[in-house]
């Protein structure tokens, strides 16, 4: 008992306690510093790999090896090689004692900057309806162009697009002249390289009307190239990192504004070319938001639209969560308020690789850098909780 009351013993206990607290703080800070150092090394490796990727593409593959001394004991060296199997370029990176492997695709250019805008219209198109947002005006040549002709059937998203001979007669008084296909709910199969998919639709594309949105799960980008009209009768909800783009092209017909909303060329409609009307009676390249005879109150589309013909709005209000590019303009069908809201995709597209199916613009560039093997590691290890 007497020993416990000794001042030396009490002072030693107090000193030990204080020192423990301070030492614990120091140890936590040192552990944080070590984790941050690992993060700095990884960030350095990624930066040097990015630099090496640009050098590799700019030099057409001649400048394949780089070594950068970043000081503080961080030395990063990269070695690039083309992978004939995947067509990607692999960058082996050594930083400190770690060995990392990155891969990137050599892109022929960037996605058209038009996709970073919301509503875009060709400079020679007629004025848009008053209740629509003010568009960005670009030269017709600057509108997104499709890169490829129709690919081999059935295509990567064939399971989502089924031929339906009856849908047009069900929804339009005179039907259509082309084959009709219905887009159904479902998933797009993922691929190892996470590359986008293009599905060609040789006819009209329909999303039938209904109270519930059409739900699609897209692990990668999907572009539907429609050689006809697209009739989007109800909302489309997309889940997953992939984006859905619907592009219509004026392939075998003439674009016109369906002023009377009967779904076919008739007196009073406005031709959007200098030719006389010919081809399928439903015209070509048109997109209908809401079906002409059914209409809708509020529709919401998780899609980007590249409209080769006329955009028709047959709803009180339509929200498009992707960009909308118009070649000829837009028309609100009779009896609808026809308010259009375009949100656009938030992140700039040209930073996330090429949008499938569209021609690249600009000079060749490296695609997004992927860390191979270890997967996508965080840039730095999170600090331990105290």
């Amino acid at each position, binding site marked *: 008992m007497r020993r416990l*009351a000794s001042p030396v013993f009490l002072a030693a206990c107090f000193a030990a306690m204080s020192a423990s607290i*301070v030492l614990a703080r*120091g140890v936590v800070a040192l552990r944080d510093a070590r984790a941050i150092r690992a993060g700095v090394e990884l960030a350095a490796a990624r930066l040097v790999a990015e630099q090496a990727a*640009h050098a590799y593409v700019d030099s057409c593959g001649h400048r394949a090896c780089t070594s950068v001394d970043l000081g*503080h004991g961080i030395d990063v060296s990269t070695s690039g090689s083309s992978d004939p199997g995947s067509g990607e370029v692999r960058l082996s990176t050594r930083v400190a004692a770690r060995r990392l492997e990155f891969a990137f695709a050599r892109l022929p250019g960037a996605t058209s900057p038009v996709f970073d805008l919301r509503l875009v219209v060709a400079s020679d198109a007629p004025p848009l309806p008053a209740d629509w947002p003010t568009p960005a005006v670009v030269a017709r040549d600057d509108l997104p162009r499709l890169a490829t002709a129709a690919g081999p059937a059935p295509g990567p998203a064939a399971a989502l697009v089924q031929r339906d001979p009856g849908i047009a007669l069900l929804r339009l008084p005179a039907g259509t002249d082309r084959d009709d296909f219905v887009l159904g709910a479902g998933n797009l199969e993922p691929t190892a390289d996470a590359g986008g998919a293009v599905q060609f639709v040789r006819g009209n594309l329909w999303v039938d009307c209904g109270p519930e949105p059409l739900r699609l799960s897209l692990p990668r980008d999907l572009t539907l190239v429609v050689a006809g009209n697209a009739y989007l009768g109800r909302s489309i909800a997309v889940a997953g990192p992939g984006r859905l783009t619907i592009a219509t092209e004026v392939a075998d017909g003439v674009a016109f504004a369906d002023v009377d909303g009967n779904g076919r060329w008739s007196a009073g409609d406005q031709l959007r070319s200098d030719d006389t009307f010919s081809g399928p009676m439903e015209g070509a390249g048109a997109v209908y938001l809401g079906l002409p005879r059914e209409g809708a109150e509020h529709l919401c589309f998780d899609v980007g639209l590249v409209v080769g013909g006329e955009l028709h709005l047959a709803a009180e209000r339509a929200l498009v969560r992707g960009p909308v590019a118009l070649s000829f303009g837009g028309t609100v069908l009779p009896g609808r308020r026809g308010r259009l809201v375009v949100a656009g995709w938030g992140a700039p597209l040209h930073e996330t690789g090429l949008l499938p199916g569209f021609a690249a613009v600009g000079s060749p560039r490296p695609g997004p850098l992927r860390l191979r093997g270890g997967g996508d590691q965080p840039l730095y290890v999170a600090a331990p909780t105290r």
Partner: protein
Amino acid sequence: VTASAPRGERLVACGLLLLCAVCCLVLARGATALELANARRREQLDLLARLSACPQRLQPGPVPELDGLFARRLEVLSTGSGPCLVFRGPASDGGREVARR
């Protein structure tokens, strides 16, 4: 320190406490400096991650906010294939950059 303790014992206790206080002060200052440096580096890494996520939006030129994260300065350079973050200048401890074919 109890008043009933011998004088020598009290002196030893006081000396021990003083020594402990000095050591703790030194250690605490070091830990604080390390914590501040960690916080700054963490912020810089966050900033670097944000900048790396959208290089197309970067303005060409040095990025002074990232000074000190590496021993070399980071700069946004316009290349033929788009803007890119690159290391500029020699490392503060004599680093070098070598590019070879």
